[in-house]
């Protein structure tokens, strides 16, 4: 009995100790992010000139200019994610299979170091290649690929390239993490059993790295959806993006109610589109599986586990 009481006291003291340790971070998180997010959502239900709860702010998000901006952001986000995937998947394979084990971490650090300098400075450094007196421009001009009047800035392709430059670590790390955990013996087995390199990739490596691809894809689309600095500085600011709408509403017009509706509407759109693409991909694989063999793990398309 006494022992049981001592046990209970000790246990509850443990819990209290844990409670005290956890509180600062929890309070910080709740007071500065979670509650204010609720406040922001609450504000989005009102307009400046009326006192009733209304969806007017959300309705105005579907107007032509707003819809166009959100569409631009969606296109930008998915093109960036696709380009990042096409760039990072081979890169992760190269790092894992062609570089000595001891050097891999150093190589990754070396590749990601520029991305730890400063976001705006990374964009700025591209000016040294892209401006009309920059290196890349001169080289392309020397090769006769560009004529005198043209410019590399204010160009959609270049915008995507710089977006990839800014965001590829978010794709590279999760994919590399998955690939580095593949047991090399499985690949040996696959080769010994007569699979070609392509078959090994399609049937072994890709199914085993699907989780990393999924989380990389999720993070890259989410972060690049909010982007407005790259299109403005590199793309010449020709088109408006979702980020521009947010900036305009919050910083220029100081209309926090409309701005918060824009924020929540945009996040809703990107999340819904991610779900939609997931469903479409799953359906496509299902249909394809009637014509070609698709590995079970790919067919299930389970990113979570």
């Amino acid at each position, binding site marked *: 009995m006494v022992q049981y009481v001592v046990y209970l006291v000790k246990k509850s003291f*443990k*819990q*209290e*100790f*844990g*409670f005290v*340790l*956890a509180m600062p*971070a*929890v309070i*910080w*998180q709740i007071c*500065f*992010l*979670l509650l*204010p*997010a609720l*406040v*922001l959502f609450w*504000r989005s239900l009102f307009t400046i000139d009326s006192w009733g709860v209304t969806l007017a702010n959300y309705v105005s998000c579907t107007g032509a200019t707003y819809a166009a901006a959100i569409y631009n952001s969606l296109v930008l986000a998915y093109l960036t994610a696709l380009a990042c995937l096409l*760039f990072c998947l*081979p*890169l992760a394979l*190269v790092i894992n*299979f*062609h570089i000595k084990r001891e050097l891999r971490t*150093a190589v990754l*650090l070396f*590749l990601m*170091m*520029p991305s*730890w*300098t*400063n976001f*705006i*400075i990374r964009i*700025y*450094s*591209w000016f*040294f*290649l892209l401006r009309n007196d*920059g*290196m*890349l421009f*001169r080289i392309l001009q020397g090769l006769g690929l560009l004529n005198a009047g043209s410019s590399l800035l204010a160009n959609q392709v270049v915008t995507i390239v710089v977006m990839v*430059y800014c965001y590829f670590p978010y794709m590279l790390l999760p994919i590399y*993490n998955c690939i*580095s955990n593949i047991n090399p013996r499985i690949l040996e087995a696959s080769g010994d059993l007569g699979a*070609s*390199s392509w078959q090994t990739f399609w049937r072994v490596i890709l199914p085993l790295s699907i989780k990393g691809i999924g989380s990389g894809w*999720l993070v890259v689309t*989410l*972060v690049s959806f909010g982007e407005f*600095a790259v299109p403005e*500085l590199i793309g010449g600011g020709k088109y408006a993006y979702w980020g521009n709408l947010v900036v305009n509403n*919050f*910083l220029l017009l100081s209309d926090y109610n409309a*701005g*918060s509706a824009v924020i929540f509407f945009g*996040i809703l759109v990107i999340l819904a589109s991610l779900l939609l693409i997931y469903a479409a991909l799953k359906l496509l694989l299902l249909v394809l599986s009637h014509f070609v063999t698709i590995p079970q793990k790919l067919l299930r398309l389970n990113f979570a586990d």
Partner: protein
Amino acid sequence: MIEKQFWRWSAWLWFAFTIVFVYAPVVAMVVFSFNQGQSFGGWEGFSCKWYQQFLGSEDMVHALSGSLLVGCLATFFSVILSLLVVVASKWWRPWWLLEIFMVNFVVPEIFVAVVILNIFVFLKIQMGLISLVVGHTLLGFGTAVPLFRTAFSELQHALLDASLDLGATYLQTLRYVILPILKPSIIYVAFLIFSLSMDDFFINFFCSGVGFPTVSTYVYTTIRAYVDPSLNALSSSLFFLSLALVLLLTLSQSIDGIFSDD
């Protein structure tokens, strides 16, 4: 055999392309920060005058020291607080305790920035150092909590129980058992959060208020207005800073296996 050769060559080609892609802009920037003239691509002789101008410019030094201050404070708060919350989860763990920090990583950064902007304006608190540290610490939670969580779950929990059973207090266990074991990941996480804070644009853009310039906001407003070669000196200095940090991290031997789970 030929196929193997082909894959090997294309692998090295891709790797070389990557190195050029990642380093060409940065190297060009560093090289031309020593340029005599104002050109972004025409070499006019070596000179350090832009560095002198950068160090002589009060605005730039202000912006740089502001960024460094915010980075240090945010690193301090987010490392300590997330370490505490992860350790606490051993003894007190409602289901939501660690999950609420996943939000910070998953929502677009612009959302976090706007939420903080809104609450500071709503409560009529002057924005500046405080709002920036608050925001960067929140960003830090998103990185630090998952990383510490992995590191802490790999730690042998029998050691903690043994330490407590042998009469150490909780604080002694924290100080003499947990901290030494987690030291490599603490160093790595601190480095990562400091870099994230120096790297950040959105929170700086929305939450720095009027009186507290940082590197991001300063460079952003300047390059949209005019060409100022002393910016190249500022940018290159920041690059050297992160180079130095990466070298320190490599030397501190805490990097083994940080990018893979095994």
